[in-house]
């Protein structure tokens, strides 16, 4: 019995030690470094015109990408679970691709379509401009809602939907009154993950942004730029702001998870 407890304690120390060294201590250190000279320099660092612009551009891109991916995600999940058609496996595989692809490769692919000498020429500029950054963000955050909603749809089954249809409900009515309420926590969880990825994307956006100061800098790009310009305190401040958004994400995930699992 004493042996057993010793093994358990040993495993616990190993696991927590690993997490501490890898995650907790470095993240804690950045917060400490950010705030070690008080709040005032941090505040002035995140309220410079460049930082304010980067903040709003990040929000703006997320506000376009997240709703589009949410609508698309719900429709695709419905098609994958409830629909019967050929090529389901192919769609399933393509949906997962953004997870496994390097963000740099994603940015490059967009560059080759919309950039100089590319396949598509639109009347407005896409590459080195905000539309390209929106496309990159949509690409990288595409799978989350689908991935979260598919298992929930499977779990709830389609009996209630069948009943509603038998009672004369239209497809729209069935969706709004039956399906959507049943999957709402799964959707919410997916939206949280999509938002976190959209706000935090760096590689793909970096390739297509051209990094024009005051025009195409998001928060993550600002972090890198400040670091390269030897403004370490500024990079820490912008990082801390992003890390706070991540902590809010974690909190939302923790609150939503049990509801999602309960269905």
């Amino acid at each position, binding site marked *: 019995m004493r042996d057993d407890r010793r093994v358990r304690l040993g495993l616990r120390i190993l696991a927590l030690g690993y997490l501490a060294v890898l995650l907790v201590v470095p993240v804690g250190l950045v917060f400490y470094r950010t705030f070690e000279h008080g709040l005032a320099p941090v505040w002035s660092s995140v309220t410079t015109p460049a930082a304010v612009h980067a903040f709003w551009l990040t929000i703006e891109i997320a506000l376009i990408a997240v709703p589009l991916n949410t609508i698309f995600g719900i429709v695709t999940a419905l098609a994958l679970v409830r629909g019967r058609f050929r090529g389901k496996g192919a769609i399933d595989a393509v949906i997962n691709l953004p997870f496994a692809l390097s963000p740099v490769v994603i940015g490059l692919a967009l560059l080759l379509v919309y950039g100089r000498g590319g396949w598509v020429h639109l009347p407005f500029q896409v590459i080195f401009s905000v539309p390209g950054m929106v496309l990159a963000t949509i690409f990288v955050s595409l799978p989350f809602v689908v991935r979260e909603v598919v298992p929930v749809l499977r779990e709830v089954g389609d009996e209630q939907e*069948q009943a509603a249809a038998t009672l004369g409900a239209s497809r729209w009515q069935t969706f709004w009154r039956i399906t959507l309420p049943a999957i709402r926590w799964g959707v919410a969880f997916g939206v949280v993950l999509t938002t976190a990825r959209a706000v935090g994307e760096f590689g793909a956006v970096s390739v297509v942004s051209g990094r024009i100061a005051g025009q195409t800098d998001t928060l993550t790009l600002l972090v890198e730029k400040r670091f390269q310009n030897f403004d370490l305190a500024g990079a820490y401040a912008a*990082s801390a702001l*992003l890390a706070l958004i*991540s902590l809010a994400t974690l909190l939302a995930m923790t609150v939503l998870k049990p509801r999602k699992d309960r269905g």
Partner: protein
Amino acid sequence: MVGGPGALGLGLATLWLSVIVLVPLAALLARSTDGGLDAFWSAVTSRQAVAALKLTLGCSLAAAVINAVTGTLVAWVLVRDRFRGKGFINALIDLPFALPTIVVGIVLLALWGPTSPLGVNVIATKTAIMLALLFVTLPFVVRSVQPVVIQLDREMEEAAASLGAGDLTIFRRIVLPNLVPAILSGAAMSFARAVGEFGSVVLIAGNIPFKTQLASVYIFGQIESDNPIGAAAVSVVLLGLSLAVLLAIGALGRWGARHEG
């Protein structure tokens, strides 16, 4: 098809997927040979590209193996052990998913870089690359093994113990075989993620050609030096690798499902 999105919905979803994902990837594939097959081949087999690809594969494989061990350990402790603050630690596991990769880079530099309070500076070494890769891939094995440990039948372990089996024997003969599919699929996902990693390594890896330059950083450099076609060629190799890993994970999932039933 009650409750389905209908033909219009299906059409819209397919169109959306095509515009956002398929057309760009088709452009990547098609334009990687814009300079002819010879140019493609010489871009892929250039010494710097090969070194970057080798380094990427080696480090990602190492990260997957380390994750298989540490991830299983963390998942086990989170399910079977009881201590104060376990809920907090459990929530913390997802931090690498929520934290922007460039912030991970800054975070690692703070502890392991030139201004480290520990006085260690691993910047521009393989250790730096491994720290970044292990940070961003931490959740994969933990989150795939955790639910399986919860489902484990403890009576089997107790039966083995009452028959005189030691802890190590029980773990090796009873527990581990049940966990293997989940460990493998988690490790494969962390491998896939590591192969494409960019944001967390770009600041700390030093990006020295032939030494610490990873494939995604090499591709980024080629784009910056206005060689998008050469960059596309190396990207196609990464794309093929991603697809292979995704297919392997799919096959693993089916294999695991068969073994459960």
